[in-house]
């Protein structure tokens, strides 16, 4: 699990963004390098493994292209995760329109078998996998963003398009359900 981004880390991102906008080409490299791996892990929960690099690259391109809409009241990482989530949703909807997949709602990003399921099947007990599998998709998304990526409720709310209070409720409900399932 990652620690929450320290304030100076977020400030460093803002400084790099300002330098990039002022013409510093290397600032883009640092902004990508600092967040590519966490972003890839986040994306890997939603898409097949071989799609991850493309989604990550497209996310960064969109994020840099939309910097005029970036507000420093959220972090660069939150900005990236939010764009990535929407990008995955758009891809799934496009695939559904082409008849490749059943269309899914925004709260169903983790609707069906994902790499996480495979990972859990390989690396953890069946009980833990079953416990996580009993969560709603949104609960599981919030829960894992909190537990494994170390995001705060406000960041999670921004990413999933909810409120901070709702994200906190989803997390605690998920924790209670998983614990209850493991206790059975």
């Amino acid at each position, binding site marked *: *699990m990652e620690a929450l981004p320290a304030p100076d880390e977020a400030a460093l991102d803002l400084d790099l963004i300002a330098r990039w906008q002022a013409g510093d080409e290397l600032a883009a490299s640092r902004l990508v390098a600092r967040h590519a791996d966490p972003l890839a892990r986040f994306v*890997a929960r939603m898409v097949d493994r071989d799609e991850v690099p493309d989604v990550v690259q497209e996310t*960064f*391109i969109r994020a840099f292209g939309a910097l005029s809409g970036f507000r420093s009241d959220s972090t660069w990482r939150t900005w990236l995760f939010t764009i990535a989530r929407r990008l995955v949703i758009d891809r799934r909807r496009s695939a559904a329109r082409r008849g490749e997949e059943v269309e899914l709602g925004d709260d169903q990003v983790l609707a069906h078998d994902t*790499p996480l399921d495979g990972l859990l099947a390989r690396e953890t007990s069946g009980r833990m996998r079953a416990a996580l599998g009993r969560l709603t998709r949104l609960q599981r998304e919030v829960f894992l963003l909190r537990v*494994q990526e170390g995001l705060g*409720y406000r960041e999670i709310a921004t990413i999933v398009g909810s409120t901070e209070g709702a994200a906190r409720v989803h997390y605690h409900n998920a*924790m*209670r359900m998983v614990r209850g399932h493991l206790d059975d």
Partner: protein
Amino acid sequence: MTDCQDTAIQDQLPEFVAGALDSGRAEIVRQHVARCAACAADVGLLRQLQPLRVEAPSIDSARIAAAVRAAQPRRGASSDAAIPSVARRQSSRWRPALLRMAATVLVCAGGAAVWQQLVAPSGRLMAVADASVSLSEDTAGLGRSDGSEVLLQSVSYGDLGDYTAEEMQTVLARLDAWDGAPSEEPLGTLPVVTTTAGHLP
């Protein structure tokens, strides 16, 4: 097992397990967990989940950064949210010069209009002169009927439709003879021709 009612502590458990709390806050949580069975169970669960990080393929950050730079060729001109961009500073620096150029064009256009007003009463003007040179009516064979000098400010051969065929041949012959050498003052050899406005006497 009853749920813990201390939501402030519960909210800090993920950071506590990750070792992301400062020492003071970590000690407070540690003491709470020691006496709270619900939070102790949560800590145990979080520690079970800790190694379950999703494996993602390796990402080529350099390639992505290059793609980002290639996709944003005009970022300075378009993304001006955080700080003044180089492009915007350059734009503001050029603005006064552009205004001066526009003003110059307007003055020249106005001058040409005044000049046309001046020469219109005397008929056709076909002369070339530098702005600093004045030509008298006798010198140029043109100009105002009262003999006053006219300041020539532009080059004009008039309307070619005003030339007869013979006059046109004369003009062309003089143009052929005029080498237009820039090292000499051209006024003395200018192919100035008076016309009859298409009507030979």
